């Protein structure tokens, strides 16, 4: 960890994201409020226990105060105001955490027993998260088996990875270094070993790493070649052929720029818009003679993958 200055305190770990300052401020604020009330209550108890201790066995209380409207109103209103203030502080911080800036880079995260996989949009995956410093990063997180939870203590952020759902989380790292990524939702035998790291690097280093990693895993191939990969890896080939024979769905061969007849009798030209719509909302434009059974790939295939598929279809003359 090459952090220049440490911001670690007795209570909280080193700060390494834009959230940390806000969260820690709220934490510290309430720590002081807590300390005040704790000392007040325990101090009063100690004072009363000593001052009003029973000196003779038959000694009765020196007074029987049962009510004091002024006192009771005060200690109702003051805590109420404090907690409402805390609610607004917490809510503002939370909303800030929920809305990713539009210039974020997107990375997909998949949790499984017991590892994290980071799928970069450049078409490769990695088992540690590498991100540039001072750059908003948006993660889209899911799980393939049980519920996990994606937690970076130094960034003060966390979200559950739920199978069958995609959850969003974003952050902007503020210092370079290597920080632990932990699973915080109990997931079985190696729950506590489901640890990886987020490596925050300078922008230039990130760009170099990205192109190296992409080329090492074939990620910098031409769009049509990547489209062929998507075709075979993402399950398109289960229903669509590329040799002109009929499958469960229409073949992809020779359809580009041609018109096809739809089940509702209309015709449509096969172009980029049509392909994108057919991927994301397949039952809206069903080709005549085929059942409307294709599931939507909206959110499953990225825009880059859809573009690659489009490029691939263009090559299938």
């Amino acid at each position, binding site marked *: 960890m090459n952090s220049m200055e440490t911001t670690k305190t007795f209570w909280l770990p080193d700060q390494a994201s834009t959230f940390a300052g806000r969260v820690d401020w709220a934490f510290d604020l309430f720590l002081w409020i807590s300390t005040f009330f704790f000392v007040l209550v325990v101090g009063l108890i100690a004072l009363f226990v000593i001052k009003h201790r029973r000196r003779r066995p038959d000694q*009765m209380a020196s007074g029987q105060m049962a009510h004091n409207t002024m006192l009771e109103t005060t200690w109702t209103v003051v805590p109420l105001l404090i907690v409402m203030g*805390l*609610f607004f502080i*917490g*809510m503002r911080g939370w909303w800030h955490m929920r809305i990713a800036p539009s210039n974020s880079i997107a990375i997909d995260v998949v949790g499984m027993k017991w590892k994290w996989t980071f799928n970069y949009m450049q078409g490769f995956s990695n088992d540690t998260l590498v991100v540039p410093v001072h750059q908003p990063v948006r993660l889209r997180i899911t799980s393939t088996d049980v519920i996990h939870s994606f937690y970076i203590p130094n960034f003060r952020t966390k979200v559950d990875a739920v*199978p069958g759902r995609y959850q969003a989380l974003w952050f902007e790292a503020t210092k370079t270094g290597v920080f632990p990524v932990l699973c915080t939702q109990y997931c*079985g035998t190696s729950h506590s070993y489901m640890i990886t790291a987020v490596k925050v690097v300078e922008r230039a280093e990130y760009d170099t790493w990205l192109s190296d990693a992409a080329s090492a895993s074939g990620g910098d191939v031409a769009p049509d070649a990547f489209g062929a990969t998507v075709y075979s890896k993402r399950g398109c080939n289960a229903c669509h052929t590329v040799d002109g024979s009929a499958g469960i769905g229409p073949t992809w061969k020779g359809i580009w720029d041609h018109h096809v007849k739809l089940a509702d009798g209309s015709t449509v030209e096969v172009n980029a818009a049509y392909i994108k719509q057919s991927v994301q909302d397949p039952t809206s434009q069903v080709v005549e003679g085929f059942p409307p059974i294709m599931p939507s790939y909206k959110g499953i295939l990225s825009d880059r993958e859809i573009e690659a598929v489009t490029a691939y279809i263009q090559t299938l003359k």
Partner: protein
Amino acid sequence: MSAHQENINYLKARKGFLNWIVTVDHKRIGLMYLASIIFFFIAGGTYAFLFRMELWSPLQGFMTSDTYNHLFTMHGVIMVFLVVVPGIPGALGNFLLPIQLGAKDLAFPKLNITSLYLYWGGATLALFSLTQGRADSGWTFYAPYSLSQNPAVLWMLTAAFILGFSSILTGLNFIVTIHKMRAPGMTWFRLPLFVWALYATGIMQVFATPVLAITLVLLLVENFLHIGIFDPALGGDPIMMQHFFWFYSHPAVYIIVVPAFGVVSELIATFSRKTIFGYKFIAFSSVAITIIGFLVWGHHMFVAGQSDVAVTIFSFLTFFTAVPSAIKVFNWTTTLYQGSIKLTTPMLYALQFLFNFTIGGLTGIILGILSVDIHLHDTYFVVSHFHYVAMGSTMIAFIGGIYYWWPKMTGKMFNETWGRIGAVLVFIGFNVTFFVQLIMGSQGSPRRYYHYLDQFQIYHQISTVGVVILALGLFTALFNLLISLRTGATAPQNPWGARTLEWTHAATPPVLYNFTETPIVTEGPYDYPVEKV
């Protein structure tokens, strides 16, 4: 039955093991709950003790991670479903509620023994599950992890289901008893605060527990038939399971802690000879917490994937539960003012309760702050927070209550010196164990971790030392009570000078039907006189 038999003490009225097992006497049922709960508290504590030893080092010690997962699951299930939920109502509530009301028994004595049988049945199944493999789902049974068809988990689900019915029937019995069985003159505002607390608890038991029951049924059905309700692989929604689960389990937090409020109110009033400051507030706030408690379950799921709007609303409502709790602490503290305070063993536990509950409450508020909760969620901070409430508040109040009512239940006085030594050891042990867990948690150490980052070792070691002190204190407290059964002095009717009916009107130990003649109530439960100058 002869009049003679009715007027001898309940421990001697009908002898023999069988007469205890088939009894419908609420006092004997209370004592049998007490013995069962102490047994399971030791069992659950032993599990905790073992895995705390393992956590001395981040490396593998004397158990594998699967064993560790099994141990914390057993610790959680036993402590929640067999100890803290049935604890104070089952043991102290059963024994005291009819006497404090001036009644001969609960409204439904046979239903009461049925509750105990269900408790034993559930407990037996939970123990039986140990022979069927290793339950490892955690006490929360989250899907899809709990859908692994592990037979031990399935038996455990069944056990929790049966224990739920035990809890429902107890709550139902208490509510009806409080409504219908009060002695002449026992108006609602002359009820001891312990009774009010049991009333609020009863409402939650009756209305929240059935939701747990159906959740467990659906989990079992999902395991066997694969319907697709909770299992994402079949199109189900695991988050829905969490909603169902917490709809019960958040009110369950109040089922756990509200009876402790009642016990502590009694203890503080008696040992400071003071009327409770703001009696009506404490009474109503228990009921208010009950109602708000039904609306805040979502705060267990801030990072689970609810809509942002739901998260915001649940956070907002959560803060409203904080205010009545805070006011109660102020009320109890103010009750001490001008009192005649004696630091007996029960009072030491009551003051510990105030200390621990203040920490438990304040850490609860910080977990309600949304942005901060994202960081703290599912870390040791949360573990420490709910132990400050469930152990540091509820169990401490429970032990204090056992000490307080021990002379009434058994007719024997305990040794005061050893009682105080036990109380101090428990106080030190508990806080050493759990305070460091707050620091560990906010530093980012997740819960349910068998293996942890090296930097947390020192906190784990302090915590483990604390647990040894705590165990020492708890056994001191227990043996002190057990020894008193043989060597303790005979207890007078009202050794503490308290004002509630069990002390002023019932013999020590009480007779079979509690009172030789029905008491007529003419004053409040805490109408202590003022010292004449």
